[in-house]
Each structure stands twice: as structure tokens, then as C-alpha cells.
């Protein structure tokens, strides 16, 4: 009995000792941390950014590809059952591979047969920094095998809001000169590869481009009126390499330009 009491007392003592040590460790750690960052006795001087700091430049590294239409909206339809929404999706996959080979990150506004709204597609691009937007279309008309590039025509930008935000429905106006440069580079590439393509980019009030705050172009291939879809499928590699090359050339222009949409 005495031996059992002795063991009980010893056991209790050991438990108490261990608990005391466990409490000391965090205390010691917090004390060490306090030593590393002592509370300042004198208030530190407030750091003021240097006046007229040079604006940060964005580097072009992201391409947002927009296979147009989708879901219940098939887009242009050919007599042979061709659907624009399906053709541009497979075209986007080829362009994506070519761009990733060049080192660009690629986002797609849709991966499958869904139909995000114009604004949802624009929001995806507008959330990126250092991005361009390419919306892909296949028209119903035009010389078969040709490609046209469009930007918005001139339209007035809204006066900058006091908080520096751009008006959503006129966001493209702020970057229209950059979009035009991008479009000219892309159209030149297409003109080299596809006979019958115009030599210079065109303008049209394409709804999808309006709310984009990044350089944006619309690319339209001709056309779903061809009887054999192989004609359009054969254009895929050429379109992909033309866009990848145009983006690579435009990167030098973009990286040297002021931050798109920045206030003066």
C-alpha cells in the first residue's frame, strides 16, 4: 500500500513538472520573438513615396482567347451543318498551343459548349494585368480562306471618374491606339499566309470589344459557307502561328507603352 502511494505521488510530481515545462516553452518563444522585434520607443518616420514616381510598366504575358458564341448561340451556320461556335473552339486550342510555345500564358473565356455573356468575357480579361484579348469568329461571307482583323472605330472615351475607374461600356477607348497597332501586326501576318486577306486591319463596332480595358482585336475567318469543313480546318495551323507571331511582335510595343488605362 505504501509503495503504491509512493508511486502515485511520484507520478503526480512528474506530470506537474512536465506541464510546467510545457508552459515555459511558448513563453520563451514569445520572449525571443519580442527580442527580435522590439517595440519602438521612438516613432519611426513616415515613409512618403517620392513625388512623380515613374509609372510602372506592365509586361505582356497573358493572352485571353475568346471562342465566340457557344451554348444556345451557334453563331454562323453553314449549309453542311458547320457551326461557328464549335469551329472556333477547336481553333482556340491550336492557337493556345502556339502561344504557350512562345511562353505566353493563355486563358480561354470558355472551354466547352457554354455561352458566357459579353460582359463576363470582358471581365475575365479586365481582371488581368499585362494581357491582350483576341475574339475568334468565322463569318458567313467573304472570300473563302481569307482572314480579317477588326478593332473598334473611334469613339469617345468617358472622362476619368474621380476614383480613376474607367466607364465599363467605353473601356476600350482608353487602349484603342494599342489595339490598332496589334490589329495591324496581326493583319500583316494573315495577309502573308492567306491569299485574299486584306492588307490592313478594318474597323467595326463589334459588341464584344467595347468593354475591354486591354488591347483587343476580333479575328474573322471566311467562312462557314464552304462546303467542306476541311477548308477551315486546314487554316488552323496558319492562323495559330500568325496570331502567336503577332502577339510576340506586339509584346515589344506593349512593354514600351505606358500602363494601359493609367491616368496621366
Amino acid at each position: 500500500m505504501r509503495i503504491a502511494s509512493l508511486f502515485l505521488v511520484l507520478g503526480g510530481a512528474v506530470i506537474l513538472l512536465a506541464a510546467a515545462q510545457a508552459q515555459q516553452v511558448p513563453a520563451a518563444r514569445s520572449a525571443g520573438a519580442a527580442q527580435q522585434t522590439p517595440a519602438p520607443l521612438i516613432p519611426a518616420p513616415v515613409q512618403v513615396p517620392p513625388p512623380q514616381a515613374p509609372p510602372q510598366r506592365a509586361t505582356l504575358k497573358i493572352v485571353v482567347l475568346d471562342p465566340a458564341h457557344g451554348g444556345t448561340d451557334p453563331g454562323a451556320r453553314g449549309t453542311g451543318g458547320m457551326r461557328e461556335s464549335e469551329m472556333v473552339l477547336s481553333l482556340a486550342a491550336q492557337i493556345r498551343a502556339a502561344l504557350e510555345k512562345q511562353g505566353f500564358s493563355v486563358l480561354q473565356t470558355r472551354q466547352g459548349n457554354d455561352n458566357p455573356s459579353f460582359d463576363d468575357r470582358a471581365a475575365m480579361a479586365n481582371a488581368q494585368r499585362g494581357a491582350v484579348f483576341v475574339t475568334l469568329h468565322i463569318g458567313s461571307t467573304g472570300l473563302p480562306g481569307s482572314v480579317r482583323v477588326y478593332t473598334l472605330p473611334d469613339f469617345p472615351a468617358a472622362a476619368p471618374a474621380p476614383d480613376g475607374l474607367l466607364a465599363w461600356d467605353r473601356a476600350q477607348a482608353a487602349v484603342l491606339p494599342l489595339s490598332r497597332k496589334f490589329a495591324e501586326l496581326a493583319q500583316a501576318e494573315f495577309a502573308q499566309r492567306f491569299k485574299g486577306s486584306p492588307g490592313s486591319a478594318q474597323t467595326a463596332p463589334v459588341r464584344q470589344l467595347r468593354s475591354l480595358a486591354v488591347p483587343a482585336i476580333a479575328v474573322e475567318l471566311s467562312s462557314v459557307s464552304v462546303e467542306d469543313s476541311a477548308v477551315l480546318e486546314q487554316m488552323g495551323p496558319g492562323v495559330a502561328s500568325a496570331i502567336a507571331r503577332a502577339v510576340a511582335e506586339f509584346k515589344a510595343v506593349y512593354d514600351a507603352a505606358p500602363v494601359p488605362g493609367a491616368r496621366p
Partner: protein
Amino acid sequence: MNPRWRVWLVAGLAAAVAAGAIYFPVLRRRIQRAARLQAQSVEQARRELSQPVTIAPGEPRVKAQLFWASREEDGGLAAVTVELPLAKEPVLRAKQVLNTLLAGPVDAELRTLPPDAALLEFYLLPDGTAIADFSEPLATSLPSGIESEKLAVESIARTLEANVPQVQRLKILIHGQETETLAGHLDLTDAFAVKTGSSPAPAAPGAGPGAATPAVVAPAVAAAPAAGAPAKLTPGTAPGKLSPAEKKP
């Protein structure tokens, strides 16, 4: 039951069945006719109500310029001069030239507008904003695509520009409604600038685009400088309220 009454009952029933069999085809035809009448759309009724604008033979014949697709230039328009007895009153004149444009050229391949599209109404506001209300086939029968939709709107705008100098801007409605796009691509939320004069340069837009522009947006500043090809189709000044303030006879 008395056997005599039973005979009368059976005979009466047989007569009723025979009468029903004779009347059934008549009834069926009447139901089908009623269904056809119900299926007639509001647009068709509206089209029937609106008076067709015909070329008045009494008016002096003038050379009107109509813009259809170009045979030489892919994606371009070509002016075709046609002698028509056009009215001097701008709304009537605009209806006449647009109906002639919709009727199409001699070569149907050079059409820019679907053959089943119709001009439902045309208004001209005092500030020079024209509102052209087309039937639904303008959107549903037009081949979908940026180029085809651009050609359609340009052919309307340039035909108005050439023949109705009072028109400064053009707003397109489809079946009386504002729509976001024509056939999935071209933005119809704005009025288009209808240029005057022979210069191909775009007309300088005045205020901001979009009748639906939020009120918080401040007045527009100058447009960004053009670096590319000259625009042929330019969103113009918002027409403001789109109610037909002045409908001239």
C-alpha cells in the same frame, strides 16, 4: 323499354352520328383557319396596318444613289445610281430609298439586306437622328458575321447619307425594340454617325455613345487618335430619348 321506343332511340342516335360525321370536316377546317389566324404575328399585323410607301409617279425623277455589295471589292460597297421619283419630304424620301434598297439589286448576290426584311417605320428627330425600325428578319435572316453585319448597316447608313441630307445619325431598331447586336456581332446599342459630304473620314462624334449610358458618366472627351484605317461605321451621338418626337407625314 317498349320495343317501339327502342327502335326510335337507335334511329335517333344513328341520325346524330351521321350528322356529326358530315359536320366534322367543316369543323376541322374552321379550327385550322382559326389556328392560322392566331399564328399571325404582331409584326405581320403591323406590317399590314402600316401603309406601303410606293414611289409616287407624279414626283420629279431624281438620281438616287443606293449602296449594295461591290462585285469588285470583297467586303466593300458600291454605289448604284437609279432614277426614282422621290419625295422632297425627308421621312417619306428616306422610306422610299430604304424600301428600294431592301428590294435589292438586279443581281441578288449583291444584296446586303435579307429579302424578307421590311422597314416597319422611320422617324426623324429634330436633331437629325433617324430611327429606322426594321422587321425581325433583318436580324434573323441576315448571315451572321462581322463582315456581313457591317455591310448591312453601312449600306443603310450610306444610302441615307447620299439621298437624305437631313439625317445625321442612324439608330436601328428591330421590331420596335433596342437590341444589343444585329445578328450576334455588330453593336446596335448606339446610333451610327451618318457622314455628310464626300470625305471618307469618319464624322467627329459629339457626345458619348449609347442611349443606355449610365447617368454617372461624365460628358465625353475627345476621341482617341486614329492609328489605323479610317472607320466607315462610327458610333455617333446618342439620340437621347427614342420616342418619335416628330413624325412628319
